[in-house]
């Protein structure tokens, strides 16, 4: 029977997938023998959501931007075969892979290990996960391997932690395994806090069992009987699907006493975060699970020795765990065949910002930034110029266009001053002011600093103030010195990753875009025409239709023009409140 699937991740739902699903559900109810309607996770092509896929035996066709009306056309043409023009599918191919379609360029350079099931299976069905080979790795780990060989296999694969630091996963597991103790814990860090990164959300929403399977294998390897998944409360759908996955795994005997008859016991529980960026730091995360303020603790003792509840603990992030079943099932050599020598395997990147095709792409390590932005991302929106990518969120940095041929791996990226981070890649165009970008990140880290270390708590505030002065055109050359000096001091004197990396956005922009800082300070000019205090507001006479809305909304009557006539802003009176921009329905008001 034909199958019709709707992509129901958070990205799909926010683009209207529920309405599309409801319309298809009504149609499917009218034609109960024609097809089977199902849901799936996010395939990564968030820019064309909502997505609808038609599966006919092993033939797959995916359509993008499917409104309810278009869904009905597709249903009539593909399922009922009534004909009609529905256009070319965005992607088409066989069950084994796609081979053509107008968006084939997005999927073609990818190697999907972590995202192997995302967009393919129903994330709420354990049977579909099993049908694609799910829990076979667990069976192998429990019945054919022992803790030592599991850890050896993970070590041999060269897998490095995908949360940002890139610590070798197998080595980390061996530390926790070496500690004797009756009680140990496996923790999955799903507190994806980096603004601009959303791969963990997509994995949990699209393939929750792969993460769970990885955790159970880890439990077996290090001798832990209990796992916690610490998930952001901002991801309600991920939590819901994890709950479904846990219940199903329990019912099937993958969780609980005597897993698959191996004599190994493992139980897992979801802990909802309560909104604190610093809880992505492992010791702060443990404090949060223990019900306290999420403040980092001093290391040593390291978590492998004394972690959660003072017991040996192994903490990995979502993407790391999702790699594990694949490695155990297919072997370390198959995994290490991808990527570079020191950073084997693949990495999922979240492309966002000013890029044309924003979404999730999994590529072998060592792919260049330029390939990610142009080949997969399709270049910059509105034909503007590519300026930089921001990697690693608030802990990362900006890599300029001139260094876009840098390969993405754990060796090359830190050399630029940025970090790999969890894989968020926000693309910036020439309309982005780099000083304002640095101010934005400092504003974030300043408010998210837990307050334990003085330099992080107060130093980031002083840096933020200096950046605010510069973006207002009130900065002085001393502010630049202060920024450089504080950057070094905060890094030296902070306990955890948040403080140690907080100055990165400032340091990288100072390194690559010093001229922009100087333009703000010396010429009172914002080269990107972004900083409000340093630009003037204008109305594009081509776009203005004379609706008078901007003039009515202007608090200082700086806009003149009669109804149906072009309007003009008097920049001497203007207080730059932006109300004219926000009130214009035609996008006619701009800053220059």
């Amino acid at each position, binding site marked *: 029977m034909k199958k019709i699937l709707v992509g129901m991740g*958070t*990205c799909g739902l*926010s*683009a209207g997938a529920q309405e599309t699903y409801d319309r298809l559900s009504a149609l499917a109810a009218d034609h109960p023998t024609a097809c089977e309607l199902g849901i799936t996770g996010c395939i990564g092509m*968030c*820019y064309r959501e909502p997505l609808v896929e038609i599966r006919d035996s092993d033939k797959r066709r995916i359509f993008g931007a499917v409104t309810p009306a278009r869904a009905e056309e597709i249903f009539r043409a593909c399922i009922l075969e009534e004909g009609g023009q529905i256009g070319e599918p965005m992607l088409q191919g066989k069950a084994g892979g796609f081979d053509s379609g107008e968006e084939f360029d997005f999927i073609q350079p990818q190697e999907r290990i972590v995202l192997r099931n995302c967009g393919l299976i129903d994330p709420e069905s354990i049977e579909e996960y099993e049908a694609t080979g799910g829990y076979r790795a667990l069976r192998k780990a429990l019945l054919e391997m022992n803790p030592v060989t599991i850890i050896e296999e993970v070590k041999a694969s060269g897998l490095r932690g995908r949360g940002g630091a890139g610590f070798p996963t197998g080595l980390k597991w061996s530390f926790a395994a070496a500690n004797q103790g009756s009680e140990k814990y496996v923790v999955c860090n799903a507190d*994806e*806090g*980096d*603004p*601009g*990164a*959303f791969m963990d*959300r997509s994995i949990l929403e699209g393939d929750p069992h792969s993460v769970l399977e990885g955790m159970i294998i880890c439990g077996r390897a290090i001798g832990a009987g209990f796992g916690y998944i610490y998930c952001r*409360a*901002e*991801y309600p759908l991920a939590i819901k699907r994890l709950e479904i996955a846990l219940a199903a795994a329990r019912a099937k005997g993958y969780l609980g006493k005597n897993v698959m008859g191996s004599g190994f016991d493992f139980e897992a529980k979801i*802990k*909802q*975060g*309560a*909104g*604190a*960026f610093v809880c992505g730091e492992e010791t702060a995360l443990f404090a*949060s699970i*223990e*019900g*306290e*303020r*999420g403040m980092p603790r001093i290391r040593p003792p390291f978590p492998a020795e004394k972690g959660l*509840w003072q017991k040996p603990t192994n903490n990995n992030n979502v993407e790391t765990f999702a790699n594990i079943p694949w490695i155990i099932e297919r072997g370390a050599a198959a995994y290490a065949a991808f990527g570079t020598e020191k950073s084997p395997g693949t990495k999922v990147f*979240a*492309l*966002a*910002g*000013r890029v044309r095709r*924003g*979404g999730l792409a999994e590529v072998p390590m060592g792919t260049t930034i330029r390939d990610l932005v142009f080949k997969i991302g399709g270049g910059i929106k509105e034909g503007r110029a590519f300026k930089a990518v*921001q990697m690693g*969120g608030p802990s990362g940095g900006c890599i300029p266009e001139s260094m876009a041929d840098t390969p993405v791996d754990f060796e090359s990226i830190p050399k630029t001053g940025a970090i790999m981070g969890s894989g*968020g890649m*926000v693309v*910036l165009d020439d309309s*982005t002011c780099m000083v304002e*970008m640095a101010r*934005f*990140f400092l504003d*974030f880290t300043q408010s*998210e600093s*837990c307050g334990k270390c003085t330099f992080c708590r107060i130093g980031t505030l002083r840096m933020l103030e200096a950046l605010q002065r510069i973006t207002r055109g009130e900065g002085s050359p001393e502010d630049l010195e202060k920024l450089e000096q504080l950057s070094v001091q905060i890094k030296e004197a902070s306990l955890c990753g948040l403080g140690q990396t907080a100055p990165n956005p400032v340091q990288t922009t100072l390194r690559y875009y010093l001229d922009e800082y100087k333009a703000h300070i010396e010429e009172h000019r914002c080269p990107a025409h972004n900083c409000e205090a340093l630009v003037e507001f204008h109305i594009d006479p081509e776009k203005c239709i004379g609706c008078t809305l901007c003039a009515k*909304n202007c608090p200082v009557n700086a806009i003149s023009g009669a109804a149906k006539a072009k309007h003009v802003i008097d920049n001497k009176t203007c207080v730059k*409140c*932006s*109300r004219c*921009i*926000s*009130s*214009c*329905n035609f*996008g006619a008001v701009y800053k220059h």
Partner: protein
Amino acid sequence: MRSNEKNFGYRLWRYNGAPGELIPLLQSAQDHFGYIPRRAIKYISQVTNIPESTVYGVITFYSQFRLQPMGRNVIRLCAGTACHVSGSKLLIDTVQDELGIEVGDTTPDGLFTLFTVACIGCCSLAPVMMVNQDTHGSLTPAAVRKILREIKRRDAAHALTADTDK
């Protein structure tokens, strides 16, 4: 059973001294009351033997917890990196202008509360905002005004039918 597990009273009653329950208790209190009232802090403190000051310290540490009642519609405007470079500041200005409130405030009629959040994880649809559980993507100032006015209109219509019912 599931609804019971999330029920604040049930959770308090079931509390068995297991450590690490403070945050889940606070979360269920917030689910129950819409915010964390003074008396909930008292109950939690009495049951868990954690001092009220410590409970308060945990509440104020995490951005999820509220000590004031929230409006009937909670707007969470994403101010993450991708949304920021796609013009989220303009959307914040627009909502503030349309509702006449600042970020963190509730309208006097209790219809809206406005927050900004670090990232909703819908970066490729930036700029994004959440109204209650619904996420809206690829927004423009005009689209934001339309969404807010639609909620106002529905609320007014609802109030009208409620009046005629009386």
